[in-house]
């Protein structure tokens, strides 16, 4: 499944980002953007926690992050969690997180206890990585038709997908 920039805009709309489909994401003002390093960590986490059949993850995450992280507190939380994860990778695996292969990233996240950590914005490093990185990315994916369709639901909870789909006997084509 190829993820598109449009999928990211749809995910942003689901997350309530005003003007997600409009000009605000298309201009060149990147003053609220996260750094390339932080974005690389986000993409690397997404490539780990999204199913392997998802392709085009980088552009999806970059577009989503640009729109979603206009909130200063959320942006700061994501950047700090990304930096913590990257520092841990450099310390434990002698390489930036984004340079690790998928299996090693997966194991590093598990070694940090992220799989069983409670997501908490003010908690431990593991709590914050779960909240700001893993759950943020899973939310982008599964609260939008992008990930929902893989499960079998084109209008998942949190996505304003209208009042037609619940009446249908089966999922409509994504182009339909």
């Amino acid at each position, binding site marked *: 499944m190829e993820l598109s920039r449009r999928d990211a805009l749809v995910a942003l709309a689901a*997350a*309530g980002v005003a003007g997600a489909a409009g000009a605000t994401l298309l201009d060149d003002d990147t003053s609220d953007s996260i750094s390339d390093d932080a974005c690389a960590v986000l993409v690397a986490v997404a490539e*780990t*926690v*999204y*199913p*392997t059949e998802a392709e085009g993850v980088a552009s999806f995450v970059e577009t989503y992050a640009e729109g979603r992280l206009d909130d200063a507190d959320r942006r700061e939380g994501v950047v700090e969690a990304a930096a913590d994860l990257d520092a841990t990778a450099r310390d434990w695996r002698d390489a930036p997180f984004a340079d690790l292969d998928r299996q090693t990233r*997966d194991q590093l*996240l598990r070694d940090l206890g992220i*799989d*069983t950590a*409670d*997501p*908490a*914005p003010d908690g431990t490093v593991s*709590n914050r990585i*779960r*909240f700001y990185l*893993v*759950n943020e990315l*899973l*939310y982008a*994916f*599964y*609260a939008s038709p992008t*990930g*929902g369709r*893989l*499960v*079998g*639901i084109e*209008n*998942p*909870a*949190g*996505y*304003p*997908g*209208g*009042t037609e*789909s*619940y*009446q*249908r*006997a*089966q999922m409509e084509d994504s182009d339909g």
Partner: protein
Amino acid sequence: MAREPVPDADVCIVGAGPAGAIVAARLAEAGHEVVVLDAGPRFDLDDRTEQLDAHLRPGVEGLWGMGGPRDAYTSSGPKGYPLNAARVKGVGGSTLHWQGMVMRLHERDFEMESRHGVGADWPIDYADLRSHYAAAERELGVAGADDNPFAPPREEPHPLPAFPPSHSDAIFAEACESLGLPTHSVPNARNSEPYDDASACVGYGTCKPVCPSGAKYTAERHVARAEAAGARVIDRAPVQRLDHSGERVDAAVYATPDGTEHRQEARAVVLACGGVENVRLLLLSASDDHPDGLANSSGAVGRYFMDHCFAGAGGRIDRQTRQNHVGFNTTESHALYDGEDPLPGVKLEFLNYAGPSPVIEALNGDDWGDSLLADLRESYGTHLAVGALVEQFPRAENRITLDHSTTDDHGNPVPDVRWSVGPETRAAIERVNEVQRAILTELDADIDWVVGPDATGPAFHHMGTTRMGTDPTESVVDPDCRAHDCDNLWIAGSSVFPTGGAMNPTLTIAALSCRLADRLDGWL
């Protein structure tokens, strides 16, 4: 904002939920000077999407702010009662988190003692309330259809067309037809088309506890109308007591966040803060003239606390059921409601949100990647569930009292909820479970859960604690919802219901508020 009392107020309304807000809007629009006091805050409409996050995402706080010292309570009954899950304090009240199901009571609900020798008759009947039901449906923007063969007679269509049935409704309809259980649409206080300056439902799927689109009715609409007509609505202003002399309430004494107390005098006072806090305020207002609490010469204040009990069953079938697209129901059956097997009213609900929601499961899981997707595919797609609300008859021992051993953030005793499920309701739940199992068996479902009489819980409908009647020795308010013991004290909301049927109460609350506003307008 101004938090001082309004001089020369005609009416002071305590509580900005649907019961109070409808009275406020109607009386303000009739030209009366109205002030509304609410214990909770105003919730910014612009924050609803973040509240959606708080619902879906573990670790995000900030849904409706219930809990803490302000909302302290105890629950001493045979069955625990989760009071703070059951209510919201704030402008809009519990309609902020409600489901939005709005049915009329049936004719039998007003006559249970006469017809069946149980409970109590209402001092009014369905015919008395019929035109007010129609008004309430317009006030709430009800989407419904005239397809329910069991519903009481009505005089005009619903304001909005009903939401069409779901895919799973069609599956259930087959089984119910085989079992002789006719199904029909559900009246929803949710816009199927734009109405009352609010959008049509866009399918966020999170109606309960938050609707980000504004398509679901909340009492904020009536608060806005009241304010547009000149009413003053003061939030974060918990009323501490009602000052009174003889049979007249002189003022509502309220606190403001800066720690000061104010006295809001008014010609009339309307209590509209729910079936628990209405009671607490009357009991907190005890005096030498009213030693057992204001308006409590009958001793009925706080007694006969009722809720609706949930009964349900669910399982999986071998075809797609398409659940969790929307957060509301579109089909019910009232086929068991008016009969005597069981005698307590029963309303069957066919859920559109059976089984786990994939996004919530993903965010709470302990895995990711391909294995998470496999888990989600396994857990989603084939669930079905049929629920029910089951009537409780009024029992004097189920009651709200003050717990003097525990105090809230203002030093007032907190409410104690004593709740139990009576034998007739337990038997009715067992009977409903039989029907639910039969429906699922007809569909060859693997039944994997049943909520029966031991596991049942409340539907969060607080009724009966300031019951309506003609006899001042047995009831708290008269048929106009005015306190027997106080000339200028009125009570709005489901606390005045003598019996509660098995219908979600808010449409009846709204109808009674329309009626109360008419009566109070005349009295003023």
